[in-house]
């Protein structure tokens, strides 16, 4: 138990920072052509991905041929922290780089790796993740989108919803039901589907704030023909891969989540003195105390993250990730709520906020009140907070599962 990293980690950090200073896209470059959806990679983003890939800084923990440098987990942690601190996105296509590419590399064929994963890694393509459905939001086993084998193709029919980035992505990682006759979680497979395939309709779903920049979509599949060799891994083995994919997503998501919280706290601390000064005396201590409460949460999130990381590095498991997902998403929400309350009626005024692009899922846009609303994306998606609590209760605390309904 100690507060400092050892010298080799610090040397790694120094090398990264030096490289970043020379190669990163400037804030002006990014603002001039913002990413308007998590499936959208503007020109600068594509170049930046390629630059990182070539230098082995895209996925440092992977070998050089996959855009990495065989970094240790601790080095990867430092990498993610420093990138977040520098205010430069690792990617604008978070699910492509974070889930789809690793899943294809883990489970896909050589051709799939070459044609899809590597194109994501080189900044040539973006991907979206087709999991949620209208009647299967948090309940993947209930999904209904069907893929029926027909010669050398699958024919896909059905509907996905909440598909981030589908309005811009080049392809979709689609979870489909390929065997309707077995128990619900057993007949699921994953297909790679090109988004320009005939029969796909994408309907953007404007959000509660900033409806002019939709990122979520409904995706309709109507007799979409998908080559049979676009099946990822084994037929009907999608459930196990989903757990693998989610683990990819959740493994170190806390790093950017924690960094997002820190940045939000830094903004709040900037604003706080003037706002507090404007309050009647007896309200000041209350406002300060609310800020202090979230400040403690913010710091606790970082400490918890480091501890979860230490456990993960020693072979720990998913429940720690449930705790981090729950705590960071609720803390981010609380920071926005406290900051909006501090603004009082000024919080209601939203005209002044600019939109600087979907740079990372943990960076809600706009005013504090808008950020508060947007923050629910993180307490709802990828397993609601309610589901995280159930996971913690059952898998960490060992409480009995609910009896099956009669």
């Amino acid at each position: 138990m100690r507060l400092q990293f050892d010298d080799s980690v610090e040397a790694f950090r120094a090398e990264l920072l030096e490289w970043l200073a020379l190669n990163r896209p400037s804030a002006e470059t990014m603002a001039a052509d913002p990413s308007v959806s998590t499936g959208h990679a503007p020109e600068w983003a594509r170049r930046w991905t390629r630059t990182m890939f070539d230098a082995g800084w895209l996925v440092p923990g992977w070998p050089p041929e996959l855009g990495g440098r065989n970094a240790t987990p601790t080095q990867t942690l430092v990498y993610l922290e420093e990138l977040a601190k520098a205010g430069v996105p690792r990617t604008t296509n978070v699910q492509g780089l974070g889930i789809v590419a690793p899943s294809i590399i883990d489970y896909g064929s050589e051709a799939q790796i070459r044609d899809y994963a590597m194109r994501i890694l080189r900044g040539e393509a973006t991907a979206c993740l087709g999991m949620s459905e209208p009647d299967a939001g948090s309940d993947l086993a209930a999904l209904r989108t069907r893929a029926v084998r027909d010669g050398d193709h699958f024919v896909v029919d059905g509907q996905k919803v909440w598909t981030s980035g589908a309005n811009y992505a080049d392809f979709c990682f689609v979870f489909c039901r390929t065997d309707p006759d077995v128990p619900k979680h057993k007949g699921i497979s994953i297909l790679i589907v090109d988004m320009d395939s005939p029969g796909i309709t994408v309907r953007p779903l404007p959000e509660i704030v900033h409806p002019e920049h939709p990122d979520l979509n409904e995706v309709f599949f109507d007799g979409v023909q998908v080559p049979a060799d676009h099946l990822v891994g084994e037929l009907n083995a999608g459930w196990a891969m989903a757990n693998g994919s989610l683990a990819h997503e959740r493994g170190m998501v806390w790093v950017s989540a924690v960094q997002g919280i820190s940045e939000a706290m830094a903004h709040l601390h900037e604003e706080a003195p003037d706002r507090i000064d404007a309050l009647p005396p007896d309200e000041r201590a209350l406002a300060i105390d609310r800020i202090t409460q979230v400040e403690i949460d913010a710091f606790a999130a970082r400490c918890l993250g480091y501890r979860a990381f230490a456990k993960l590095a020693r072979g720990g498991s998913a429940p720690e990730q449930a705790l981090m997902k729950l705590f960071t998403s609720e803390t981010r929400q609380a920071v926005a709520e406290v900051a909006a309350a501090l603004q009082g009626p000024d919080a209601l005024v939203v005209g002044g906020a600019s939109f600087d692009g979907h740079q990372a899922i943990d960076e809600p846009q706009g005013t504090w009140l808008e950020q508060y609303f947007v923050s629910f994306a993180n307490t709802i998606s990828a397993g609601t907070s309610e589901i995280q609590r159930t996971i913690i209760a059952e898998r960490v605390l060992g409480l009995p599962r609910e009896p099956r309904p009669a």
Partner: protein
Amino acid sequence: MDLELDADQLELRDHARAFLADACPPSLVRGVYEGTGTADGLWKSMVDLGWPALGIDVADDGLGQGFIAEAVLVGELGRVVAPTPYLATVTQLAPMLAEAGAHDVLARIAAGTCTGTLAVHETTAKASRHITAQAIPIGGGRRVLDGTKTHVLDGATADEVAVVVRGGPDDERGLGIVLVPREAFDAEPLIVIDPTMPLATLHLDGIEVDADRVLIEPGSPEAGWRIGLVQAHATVAMAISCVATCRAILEATVEYAKQRHQFGRPIGSFQAIKHRLADLYLAVERADALAWYAACTIAEQDRSGHAPMAAHMAKAAAGDCQRLATRDGLQLHGGIGFTWENDLHFLLKRAVTTAFLFGDAASHRVQLAQCRGLEA
């Protein structure tokens, strides 16, 4: 003490609810949000029904039904996020006119030919409840204004604005009220999260008002106390509106929890969801009971000093209730509630707006404590 509506009030509520279901559907609210429609017709129908006149004294050409009837309508309008000048006109300007005995303008409000609002809040003030705007005497009972008001509800459209001012730069305690017509000042509309509750900043520098527009002479006996009563009145109305919106969020969320299935059963059958909704129900009931208690102190024109305390409790509880309703309403709706296409966000944004205007929960708790003699 009887905190239930009587038969007449219940009938009024049911009638208003039926009328608004037709006259103010979510599509009308959406039109206002998206800039593709207005609610002018709704206000006209309300005027035709005599709603602005309902609570105004018969002597001022009103229907004399009192504040409880008015509050019933405020609640029904809050339920459906109605975009109307009712709240500002009837619960902010009218009570100030009544306190000041301004019969003519009151009669115009009753007739539906005048809308109005109350301008209290100032961004520039060091302390948000401290008033710095001034009305400086310039002879002949006339005064010239100096200052800026902001977050004024309907401030860019109201026909008449009652402005809380001091009598001059050195007059620390001398609060007063002047009535300014729309055409006299610059109003800067604010882009707000809930366009059905339009706010504006009013620039008042150099505006001259005649003696008959000084509704309450700054520094006159009990001026601060009388203005406080009107603020309590407006605050209670805002609390009633907020709680009604929160109840609509609760109802929408309960309905969704009954319909939405996950893991093979309605999500409302999961115990954790049930308990969250039970707690939200409790928060709504708590705020509602306090709001209607406070409404009684307004309706009965309680001058024992209890009305401001009741208003503080009501608005504090409304704020607490809004916090839970917004959070749980949005969270339990899942992705659906997160979309622009769903109507839920109209309720959420209205709830936040009414919770923040006229003081949030913490501010009213501090004021309540001060009434109780507890000050840090």
